[in-house]
């Protein structure tokens, strides 16, 4: 006779198989969405750019995005075989800055969005599950955070704390962006709370944490994941805007910072090879995550899928 432990093991294996099958089904739906596939393709492209950013400095130190200066060039020069996208005002290679920018954008976007969604999911679940005064307080807090203009809050913070490093920036973005997610997760939790299986778990004597983490979390995670794709965009945009205004982390290069250099050094009207690439990259990465988010929305939201078919 199998011990209860083994039964539990079997169940959890079954759960994993179920999860994988579910993922397979979802992927099959996602694949049929051309916009979603386009977004994914773009994202892969940016991922490759981020990986490729390690190559140029290895070829020659003058290709280092921040400190590498071409010994023969000390001003902005257009594209050539030596510098495929030209050089900036100090003679640094624009292509290697652009590649590093992809790495920085993905790093900031994904980590800030992940933290924001983790906070938002926790707050939303706690608020929805416990209700009452806890719910009221947390949701009032979320309302306040939501009306704050994020970029300007970060500006004020950097006026007090001085230059913000990338990781401080990630943390602050996460603290400013959890609120929207928490509202969505809260309403999802409210509807899960009254499902029979949650009540069964409660009657069986499961603790609050166990009900929340074992029984409800798996059901809200897909939604959290969806909101993460939207969060990535907004984190990337905040960082880009901040760097564009001249308050970015000076130890690294980002697309927003590249635009700031074009603008502030007065090359705007004479160096299109420098002005266009960073802007195109920021806009395309925004587009990529938007398309992925829309497509995932359709996968998770069968109602939307039907509507698309009807059209």
């Amino acid at each position, binding site marked *: 006779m199998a011990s209860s432990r083994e039964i539990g093991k079997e169940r959890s294996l079954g759960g994993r198989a179920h999860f994988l099958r579910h993922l397979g089904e979802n992927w099959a739906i996602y694949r049929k969405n051309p916009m979603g596939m386009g977004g994914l393709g773009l994202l892969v492209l940016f991922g490759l750019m981020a990986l490729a950013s390690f190559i140029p400095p290895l070829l020659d130190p003058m290709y280092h995005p921040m400190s590498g200066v071409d010994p023969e060039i000390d001003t902005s020069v257009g594209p050539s075989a030596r510098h495929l996208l030209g050089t900036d005002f100090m003679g640094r290679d624009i292509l290697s800055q652009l590649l590093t920018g992809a790495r920085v954008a993905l790093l900031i976007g994904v980590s800030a969005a992940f933290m924001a969604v983790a906070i938002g999911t926790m707050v939303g679940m706690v608020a929805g599950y416990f209700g009452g005064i806890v719910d009221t307080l947390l949701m009032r807090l979320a*309302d*306040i955070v*939501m*009306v*704050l*203009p*994020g*970029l*300007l*809050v970060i*500006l*004020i*913070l*950097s*006026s*007090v*704390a001085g230059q913000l490093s990338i990781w401080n920036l990630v943390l602050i973005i996460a603290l400013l962006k959890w609120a*929207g997610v928490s509202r969505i997760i809260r309403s999802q939790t409210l509807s899960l709370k009254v499902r029979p299986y949650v009540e069964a778990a409660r009657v069986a004597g499961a603790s609050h944490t166990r009900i929340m983490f074992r029984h409800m979390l798996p059901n809200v995670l897909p939604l959290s994941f969806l909101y993460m794709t939207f969060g990535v965009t*907004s984190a990337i*945009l*905040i960082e*880009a*805007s901040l760097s*564009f*205004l*001249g*308050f970015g982390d000076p130890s690294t290069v980002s697309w*927003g910072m590249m*635009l700031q250099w*074009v*603008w502030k050094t007065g090359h*705007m*009207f004479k160096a299109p090879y420098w*002005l266009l690439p*960073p*802007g195109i990259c*920021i*806009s*395309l990465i*925004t*587009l990529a995550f*938007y398309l992925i988010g829309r497509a995932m929305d359709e996968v998770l939201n069968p109602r939307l899928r039907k*509507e698309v078919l009807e*059209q």
Partner: protein
Amino acid sequence: MNLRKFLLVRSGQIVVTFWIILTLLFVLFRLAPSDPLSVVADSLMSEEEIQILKAQFGLDEPLHRQYLLYLWNFIRGEFGISFHYRQPVVEILGDRLPKTALLFTTATILYALAGISLGKILAWYRGSLLDSGMSFLGLLTHTFFLPWLALLLVWVFGYKLGWFPLSGMISPEIWLDPESGFLAKFLDVLHHMALPMGVLFLTHFGGYMLVMRTTMLETLREDYILTARAKGLPEKVIRNRHAAPNASLPVVTSLGLSLAFSINGGALTETIFSWPGLGRELVASVAHGDYPLAQAAFLFIAAFVLVANLVVDVIYAYLDPRIRY
């Protein structure tokens, strides 16, 4: 709940929200690693000036008294003196606020109305070339990075074509000329406003258009639309009077939710076009280390966002009778 009660409750919530923001700002500036005196006094000020400021902000008193004094100073509109302009902060911001309001409000009204009416039309002609073309355009402009789009527009329409001024709000030669009348001045401001407004319009209308298109498609499937059709009402009446008002409710909600986001874009636009508004002043004061001005500019903008939210609530209550009764 009637409209009056609804508005009273919302205003109360807004006052509480503002008080919390005010308190957070106080904590932030007092917790800062720098000397608290540096928040109100500049190193260039004379010893006497510093003593006056110290007394005014109660910097040598215990923290709770400082806080009460801070609230009292806020209520009196006493924000200290700007290090950069050597002028009372409230005078500077009083001058900037209407300029931000002019640019931001005009742009918001234009892109919200355009988004709603375009979305309505796209949903009506769904599947047509117009629909797919405009949806694509809306998506494209929606994803443009605002500062970059602004630089491109300045480059093309300001520099290459020379149709619009590169920056600023007025041309001094027109405003200093005693001959020029109101119309000339008005047209001059409009001329300067065209590009910044174009940037805000292009980056915002797409989002509203797409939301309106989706909700309009949903609304058109409702039973009451079928009823209206069965009654033999003209198509235009069904579209504009039966479907559109209900479909625009979620758009108004998203207008309120994205106000904070739009104000970020407003600050970037103001900075790029040197539009003398609150956002540009905030960016500049942070760059100068001008704490009194930065702090007050932030509060002005926060108040502006909250009041704008209240206006959106009023519009919502007007459109949706369920809120009012």
